[in-house]
């Protein structure tokens, strides 16, 4: 029996507390473990030593390989003892030591013996230990016993086998799946826990078989479920069945809803919550279905137990995202939770209220939140800031009080992520609410006067450079910006110089004053700052010469790069300094995500990245050799472009050698008509020379054989030529682009799984950037508008407005409106959709 280390009466509690493990040392305990080898085992002493070993392990101490092996071997000797308490400790310490596969063999026979023992508890424990330390080969030997154990009369033995099954399913699914008859039987067990474990395992075994899961759920609903834990599982599996059976609300009642609803009256709180959550998460839930769930959740808001309040408010918070109106009845209860001692609860309550509140309650709510902000951690504050941002966008008329709130908290203490969340919010409000612009910019200016985060300062300076010149009095920002040149580090100073130049370029009256300031920056101690100051002076014509036209200057200062920065960075890194200058036109204007050309787990893994240039397309094949016994040489992809007529191969770069498990690249380049979005299909064969490798020495043999390997086909599609570039304010961008080259047409998309699926398909087809979150389709919608933006090959801006509507039960109709700077591009977008 496990004995306490020091015998001690309760009345000695008042004595000085000292740890029985005081001064414990790993080395000394390992020495003590030698008692395991004594011919006459002292069970009590051995238990004490095991306890010390457990203490060390539980403290996070680790044993070296040699130490662990020694202890493990010594522990196996303890199987000789018949002392029950010691045996229980031995089972535990073996699991904790987790012996390596070559050591397990020592203990296997003892454990197999215990597994067939007449003593039930030996069986249960031996199963747990064996399953913890076993590998596949041993498992086939003991499988027979495990199957018996699953239907053992003793619930502890059955549970041990079932829980082991849950773990083994991860590593040896084929074996565990063979047990389903026994597990099915265990689901009917009268022992509550056995039923719980059996249900979990059976569901995992059958989770990919929809019909089987549906049958399982139906039969259990009719039968008896004996524990709340199992009932929760049943509810979870039921909602999965409902979800998979699709949305039948229009055709009548939802299957199994009555079951979920009846669970709301269960005596266990856990079950009630599970049912309420399942109902609130039903796809396209109606308000009639929601009401009973919301009512029980509301009751829990005033529970005396924090866990229940937390669970209730957390669930309601989720509901508020989709159905804010459904929970307005709970607002009063939720307001009282703002002062909850538990900050997690209070934060959830506040963010829920911010989602459900109406315009008239905003001011009152803000007052309450102000008091609350000072005593919560940054992570909670960020959640609140994000909620306030959405509230402000919802009620733009309230921007004044919300902007004030944000600027106040911006002045208070806080870490980077928190400050970034506030700055991001102010920037978004400035962009979306024109009235908020001037006050917002001034708040940001004040913030950078005392900002410790370089990243935020540079972001704000960049933003000021874009927005500041468009305000009624741009000159008032100059002081804040120029102060940065005196007071900050080089990175911020360089940003400030760029921002000054933007003001100079955009506002003629300010230009002479900006020159004075830029001239001072030429004496900066940092070369980047000096270089920028000199560059901008020249660009703006500060030295008296008119170097460039006004348009060129503005394009230079305000224009965006027409190549993605990642591609520029990669190209710069690959550039080797030479006489030949770096050519920015050699940077791919777009690179696709890797497309797999082989299935998972094949001998050779190949994926391809498409690099798009104005006149060329380059395929970068990333190849991996997954066979340790092979070395590949002269690897090349032979590309057949007969279905891509307008492409002609101009260059290919083979791969000298491809050793095992070290990915390398080979390239093939094609020429194509300049500036056109040419499409085509390419078939690929991987060609190479194989040499056998001796695994023991790693050396390749001299003999070699030529071989080839068929890869999947590859398509270049129109979407490859469109850059995903977002716009911050779609309506402004749409209107400023004008309707000169607008093209509108309607399309029938045929029957679709859902509106959301149709929207997604069109977005992927066009490869454009969804704007303003319009890629998300609210559940149950019958119509939806999605806004997309991008830049077409030739650097032509293009915007798309998609209006979807359900025509009949499943048929989706779509109206496509395109605006761009070039009519052929507008037509091209329609062609993509028409042919896709």
């Amino acid at each position, binding site marked *: 029996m496990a004995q306490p280390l020091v015998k*001690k009466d309760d009345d000695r509690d008042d004595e000085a507390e000292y740890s029985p493990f005081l001064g414990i040392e790993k080395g000394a305990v390992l020495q003590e473990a030698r008692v395991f080898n004594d011919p006459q085992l002292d069970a009590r002493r051995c238990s004490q030593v095991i306890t010390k070993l457990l203490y060390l392990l*539980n403290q996070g101490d680790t044993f070296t390989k040699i130490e662990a092996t020694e202890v493990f071997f010594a522990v196996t000797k303890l199987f000789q003892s018949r002392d029950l308490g010691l045996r229980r400790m031995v089972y535990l310490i073996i699991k904790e030591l987790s012996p390596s596969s070559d050591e397990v063999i020592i203990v296997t026979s003892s454990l197999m013996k215990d597994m067939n023992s007449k003593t039930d508890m030996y069986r249960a424990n031996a199963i747990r230990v064996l399953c913890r330390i076993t590998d596949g080969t041993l498992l086939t030997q003991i499988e027979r016993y495990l199957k018996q154990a699953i239907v053992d009369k003793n619930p502890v033995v059955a549970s041990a086998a079932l829980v082991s099954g849950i*773990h083994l399913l991860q590593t040896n699914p084929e074996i565990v799946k063979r047990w389903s008859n026994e597990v099915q039987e265990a689901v009917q067990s009268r022992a509550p826990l056995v039923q719980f474990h059996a249900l979990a395992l059976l569901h995992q075994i059958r989770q990919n078989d929809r019909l089987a899961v549906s049958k399982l759920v139906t039969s259990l609903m009719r039968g008896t479920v004996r524990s709340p834990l199992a009932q929760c599982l049943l509810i979870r599996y039921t909602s999965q069945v409902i979800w998979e059976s699709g949305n039948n609300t229009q055709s009548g009642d939802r299957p199994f809803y009555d079951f979920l609803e009846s669970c709301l009256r269960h005596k266990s709180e*856990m079950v009630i919550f599970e049912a309420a959550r399942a109902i609130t998460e039903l796809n396209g839930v109606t308000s009639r279905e929601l009401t009973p769930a919301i009512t029980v959740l509301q009751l829990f808001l005033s529970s005396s137990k924090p866990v229940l309040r*937390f669970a209730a408010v957390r669930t309601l918070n989720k509901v508020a995202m989709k159905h804010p109106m459904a929970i307005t009845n709970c607002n009063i209860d939720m307001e009282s939770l703002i002062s909850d001692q538990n900050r997690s609860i209070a934060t959830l309550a506040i963010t829920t209220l911010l989602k459900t509140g109406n315009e008239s309650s905003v001011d009152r709510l803000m007052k309450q939140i102000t008091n609350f902000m000072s005593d919560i951690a940054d992570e909670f504050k960020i959640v609140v800031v994000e909620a306030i941002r959405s509230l402000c966008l919802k009620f733009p008329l309230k921007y004044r009080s919300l902007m004030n709130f944000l600027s106040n908290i911006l002045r208070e203490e806080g870490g980077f992520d928190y400050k970034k969340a506030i700055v991001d919010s102010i920037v978004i409000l400035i962009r979306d609410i024109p009235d908020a612009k001037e006050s917002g910019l001034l708040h940001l200016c004040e913030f950078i006067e005392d900002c410790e985060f370089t990243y935020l300062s540079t972001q704000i300076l960049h933003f000021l450079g874009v927005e500041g010149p468009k305000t009624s009095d741009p000159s008032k920002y100059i002081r804040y910006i120029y102060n940065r040149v005196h007071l900050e580090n080089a990175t911020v100073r360089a940003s400030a110089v760029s921002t000054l130049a933007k003001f100079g370029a955009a506002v003629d009256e300010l230009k002479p004053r900006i020159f004075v300031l830029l001239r001072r920056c030429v004496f900066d101690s940092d070369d980047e700052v000096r270089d920028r100051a000199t560059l901008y002076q020249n660009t703006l014509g500060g030295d008296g010469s008119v170097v460039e036209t006004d348009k060129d200057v503005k394009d230079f200062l305000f224009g965006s790069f027409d190549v993605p920065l990642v591609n520029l960075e990669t190209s710069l890194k690959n550039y080797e300094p030479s006489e030949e200058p770096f050519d920015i036109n050699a940077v791919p204007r777009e690179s696709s995500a890797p497309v797999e050309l082989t299935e998972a787990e094949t001998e050779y893994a190949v994926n391809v990245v498409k690099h798009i240039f104005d006149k060329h397309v380059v395929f970068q094949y990333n190849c991996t050799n997954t066979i340790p016994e092979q070395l590949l040489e002269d690897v090349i992809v032979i590309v057949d472009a007969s279905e891509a007529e307008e492409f002609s191969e101009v260059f290919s770069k083979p791969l000298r050698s491809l050793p095992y498990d070290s990915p390398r690249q080979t390239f093939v380049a094609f020429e194509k008509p300049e500036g056109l979005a040419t499409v085509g299909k390419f078939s690929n064969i991987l060609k190479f020379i194989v040499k056998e490798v001796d695994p023991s020495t790693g050396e390749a043999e001299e003999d070699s054989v030529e071989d080839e390997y068929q890869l999947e086909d590859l398509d270049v599609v129109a979407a490859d030529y469109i850059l995903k570039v977002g716009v911050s304010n779609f309506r402004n961008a749409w209107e400023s682009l004008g309707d000169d080259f607008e093209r509108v047409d309607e399309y029938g998309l045929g029957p679709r799984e859902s509106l959301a699926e149709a929207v997604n398909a069109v977005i992927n087809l066009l490869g454009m950037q969804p704007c303003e979150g319009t890629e998300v389709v609210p559940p149950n919608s019958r119509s939806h508008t999605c806004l997309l933006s991008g830049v077409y090959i030739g650097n032509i801006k293009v915007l798309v407005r998609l209006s979807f509507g359900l025509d009949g039960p499943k048929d989706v109709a779509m109206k496509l409106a395109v605006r761009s700077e070039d009519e052929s591009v507008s037509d091209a977008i329609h062609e993509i959709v028409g042919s896709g």
Partner: protein
Amino acid sequence: MILAVLFANVEGNILIERFHGVPAEERLHWRSFLVKLGADNLKGAKNEELLVACHKSVYIVYTVLGDVSIYVVGKDEYDELALSEVIFVITSAVKDVCGKAPTERLFLDKYGRICLCLDEIVWKGYLENTEKDRIKRLIRLKPPTEF
């Protein structure tokens, strides 16, 4: 998955820590996060009063029992309610072994048995046993009474 069960003393020193499926390099972070959470919130809490928190998609239910604070961390199906069940089993078992809400000394005196109880309650991240009487018998290798 029950990601962690952790016991600490009043000063925030770890008495027992068991992680399941948490990479070794993240454990230190969890340990200090939990201890800080307890230091901030457990002062003045009653024995076995359950406190709750969430950190990203992970739930934490914690409590104090005598001189010992107990933390259980879970994710997915082990949400705050399931974890309350787990921590309830753990506190009942510990009280049973110690005979009352333990002092630190008493807890350490019964260390081996408490480890055995935990072994019966949580099996590599899954809840296995839930009744203290059964657990009491199981750690002595006695079959459950109802059998």
